[in-house]
């Protein structure tokens, strides 16, 4: 419902602005680097058979995706705890709007923001690939799968931040816990590998990480949502 979504937008405005900065900063840096290369070097270098510009902007897109992991932690951590921190949740609590609708509007905002970030970066990458058809994109599937890993990590961070946002009223705690969760998953997998004496890097991690993070993400999100929906206090 429009008013709810508007309120969610206003509550997260600062975070959305930060997210926009994090999205665009790598491109700005890339632009500066490119300009410098053009101004100083007579001929821009060719790297691995690809034009300089393609490499620079490709890297910028990847860095932008990396930075979006932090944006996603901010969005998740602030989603529910933010209202409790400024106590406006107490105002919402006695209005005739269900927790379900409030949850939906929070998720809508996050989805819109995240989709926009990924859309921009994927479009850039897609454009770069299509602009250089003559080059051999040897590791294309590898690049695609690493993008998938980042997407999954993004999901994990959001869901864990969401859970901790739902459980308590300090957004910073939720943000940090979410941001750190991928490391914990890796640590957990490492420990499991040692316990069962498996070779971690070559096979266990590439399979174990997606499964573990997906499970943890789904479980965190479900638990956080159910708790929020059923809790009586604001």
């Amino acid at each position: 419902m429009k008013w709810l979504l508007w309120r969610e937008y206003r509550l997260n405005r600062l975070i959305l602005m930060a997210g926009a900065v994090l999205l665009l900063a790598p491109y700005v840096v890339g632009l500066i680097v490119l300009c410098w290369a053009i101004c100083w070097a007579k001929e821009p270098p060719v790297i691995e058979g690809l034009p300089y510009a393609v490499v620079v902007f490709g890297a910028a897109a990847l860095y932008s995706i990396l930075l979006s992991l932090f944006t996603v932690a901010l969005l998740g951590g602030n989603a529910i705890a933010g209202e409790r921190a400024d106590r406006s949740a107490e105002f919402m609590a006695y209005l005739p709007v269900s927790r379900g609708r409030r949850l939906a509007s929070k998720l809508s905002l996050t989805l819109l923001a995240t989709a926009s970030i990924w859309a921009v970066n994927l479009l850039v990458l897609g454009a770069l690939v299509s602009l250089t058809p003559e080059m051999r994109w040897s590791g294309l599937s590898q690049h695609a799968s690493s993008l998938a890993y980042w997407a999954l990590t993004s999901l994990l961070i959001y869901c864990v931040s969401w859970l901790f946002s739902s459980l308590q009223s300090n957004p910073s705690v939720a943000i940090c816990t979410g941001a750190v969760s991928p490391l914990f998953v890796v640590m957990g997998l490492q420990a499991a590998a040692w316990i069962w004496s498996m070779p971690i890097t070559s096979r266990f991690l590439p399979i174990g990480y997606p499964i573990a993070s997906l499970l943890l993400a789904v479980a965190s999100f479900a638990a956080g949502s159910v708790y929020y929906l059923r809790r009586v206090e604001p």
Partner: protein
Amino acid sequence: MSAKQENEAAIELVGLTKRFGRTTAVDDLSLRVPAGSTFGLLGPNGAGKTTTIKMLMGLLRPTAGRVRVLGAEVLAEPLMVKQRVGYVPESHHLDRWMRVGQVVGFCRALYERWNDQTCRELLELFELDADKQVKHLSKGMLVKLSLLLAVSHEPDLLVLDEPLAGLDPLAREDLLEGVLRTICDRQRTVLLSTHSLDDVQRLADTVGILYGGRLLVHRKIDELLATTKRIRATLTDGRPPDRLPPNTIWQRVQGREWLVTVGDFTPDTLEQIRAQPGVEHVEIIDLGLEGLFKDFIRGRRAAS
């Protein structure tokens, strides 16, 4: 009004209890507020008024007991209750960045029944500036805005938690007028929680005194004032009688002066006291609500 409507309680609390760890904030509270009445919940700070009201509004889960508002279990049908109940809380936490006009628009979109005319009239009466941000509103204006939001959606029950506390005299008058308008326009049920006796006497027809989480008395104000009397007598040897009058609320012996406050006072009670040995010069003193309130509290304190 049909018999069913007359008997239907706007609020029904049965054995309501709330414990926070070791502290019992509300202790086995049972209360029935009939539709159409104005009920004053009176009690000192910390008596459990706000906790009770929060449970009434579905903002707090009771430890035990049942809460029914307008015929519905509050925790089972929270949305229905919130649609039909107007609530003015003790502390206001509207989004500070919202402007008055935006707050009104926001709430208007959520309620099924919204009276634009009432809203406009109150905006004018309270002199609220639609462009002002909530964070720039004084306490008086915040309360007035809360009342406006509570009343504009035509609630069947209006719940006010200490609405007049900390207001300057002009804001008080504005708010009293706002509350009275809503009492006058439709025979709504109003529950007013306060420690101000003046406001209870002005606005309420029934009063309940809450202390230590317990309801000490629940009566129509006129009845309470008429049937509760304080007796002053001289004790010839400074000792009060062994048998206290029935329904004694509080007593005090100071030298030869004996003060005893009695509920459900009848001429028989007076005769009984006069008949006691060692009791002379029995005099009846009329108590105002303030004196009555203090005696109830003092009596309870002495008993526990």
